[in-house]
C-alpha cells in the first residue's frame, strides 16, 4: 500500500512537471523605451506557441511563457529581438512556477 501511494505521488509530480508550460527569460540590451518594449512583445507574440509575453523595461528583461508542449529556441528569440531593433544578450529557460 505504501509503495502504491509513493508511486501515485511520483506519477502526479511527473505529470505536473511534464505539463508545466515552458518559460523563458530573454535579456535585451538597451531596452528602456516602451515603443521598443512593446515592439519586442509584439514580435514575440507572433511566434508560434507563445502564450504570454511581458517586458520588465527597467531590467531589460522579456519573460516569454509558452503554450503547453510548445518551446522557443534561442535562434527564434534572437530573430524576434532583432526584428524589434535590438540585440539579444542572454536567453534562459525556466519552468513556470519554479
Amino acid at each position, binding site marked *: 500500500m505504501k509503495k502504491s501511494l509513493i508511486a501515485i505521488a511520483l506519477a502526479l509530480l511527473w505529470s505536473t512537471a511534464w505539463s508545466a508550460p515552458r518559460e523563458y527569460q530573454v535579456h535585451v*540590451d*538597451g531596452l*528602456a*523605451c*516602451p*515603443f*521598443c518594449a*512593446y*515592439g519586442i*512583445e*509584439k514580435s514575440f*507574440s507572433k511566434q508560434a506557441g507563445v502564450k504570454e509575453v511581458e517586458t520588465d523595461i*527597467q531590467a531589460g528583461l522579456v519573460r516569454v511563457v509558452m503554450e503547453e508542449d510548445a518551446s522557443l529556441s534561442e535562434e527564434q528569440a534572437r530573430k524576434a529581438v532583432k526584428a524589434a*531593433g*535590438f540585440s539579444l544578450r542572454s536567453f534562459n529557460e525556466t519552468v513556470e512556477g519554479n
Partner: protein
Amino acid sequence: MRQRKRPLKFLALATVVGLVALLAGYGAWFPSAQEPAYVFVDAWGEPGTGPGQFRDPTGIAVTDNEVFVSDARNARIQVFDHDGRFLRQFGAPGEGLGQLGRPMNLTISNDELYVADYWNDRIQVFSLEGKPLRTIGRSGQGPGELNAPGGVAVATNGDLYVVDFYNQRIQHLDPEGRFIEQWGTTGEVGIWAGEFNYPTDVALATDGTLYVADGYNDRVQVISAQGKFLHKWGGPFAMNIFGPFKGWFATTTSIAFGPQGSVFVSDFYNHRVQKFAPDGTFLSAFGEEGTGPGQFNYAIAAAVAPDGSVFVVDFGNHRIQKWRPHDSE
C-alpha cells in the same frame, strides 16, 4: 535602436562634440532659455489597474476641461478633469472594435479621439465619451498599411498623418485610410533630412506644417504643407547626436503645440519637456529625473490645454503631472 546606458561612450562623444562646438559657435548648440521655467502644479496616479491607476501611461490629449490618457498595459483610455479627478474609462485588451493593444500617443480633432493602436497596427477613433467609431489602417508595409503606429495628426479636412514606427515613415492618408503620400523610406532607418529613425509622434500646425518627433534621431523634423522638408533641430546638425543640453534630446517621444503655436517636445531619456518656437528656437525646459513633485521617470508625452497648462505623462512613475507657465496664476 541603440543602447542608452553607456556613460563613458557618451562622455567621450560629448567631449568631442563640445570641443567642436566651441570652435563652431557656442551659442548655436548651447542656447540659453528665452522664457521663465514652468511651475509644477500637481500630480496624480500610481501603479495599478483601478480607476486613476496606471500600468505604463504612454500618451495624452486634452480638451478645455478634460484630460485623456493612454493606459497602455491596461489597454484602456482614462479620462480625468484638469485637477486629476477620474471621470470615465474605455477600451479593453483585444483586436476588435473598441479594443486596444498598447495604445500610444493620442490626438483630439473635431471632437473625436484618435488613438495610435500600436499592437493592432491601426488608428482607432472614439467619440470623446468613449464610443468606438471606426478604425483606419491594417498590418503591413504597403501603402496605407502600418507596423506599430506611434502617433497621428489630423488635418481640418480629416486627412491623417500617421507615424509608422517600424516602417520608418510618416504616411499621409485620406479620412478613409487611402494612401496619399509618405515621407521616409519604408523600413529603412536614415539620419539625413527627410529620413527617420523610429519616429514616434507628429503634430500639425494650423498652416498645415507638419512637425515630426523623429524619436531615435533625437530631433524634430519639419515638413511644409506642400510636403517639402523645411528644417530640423536637436543637437549638433540635428542628426542623431543625443545629449542632456538645452535644445538637445535623448529620444523624442511626443510633440504637441501650445495655444500660441509653441512646440512642446517630450525628451524621454532626459526626463523633461522642452519648449521651442516653431522655428526651433529653444524657449524653456522643465523636469528632471526623480520620483518627487516635478520630477520625471521618463517624460514620454505632453499635451497643452487652451489655458496654457501642460499635462505630462510621467511614464516610469505611472502618473500624470500638471504644470503651468511661470507668469500664470
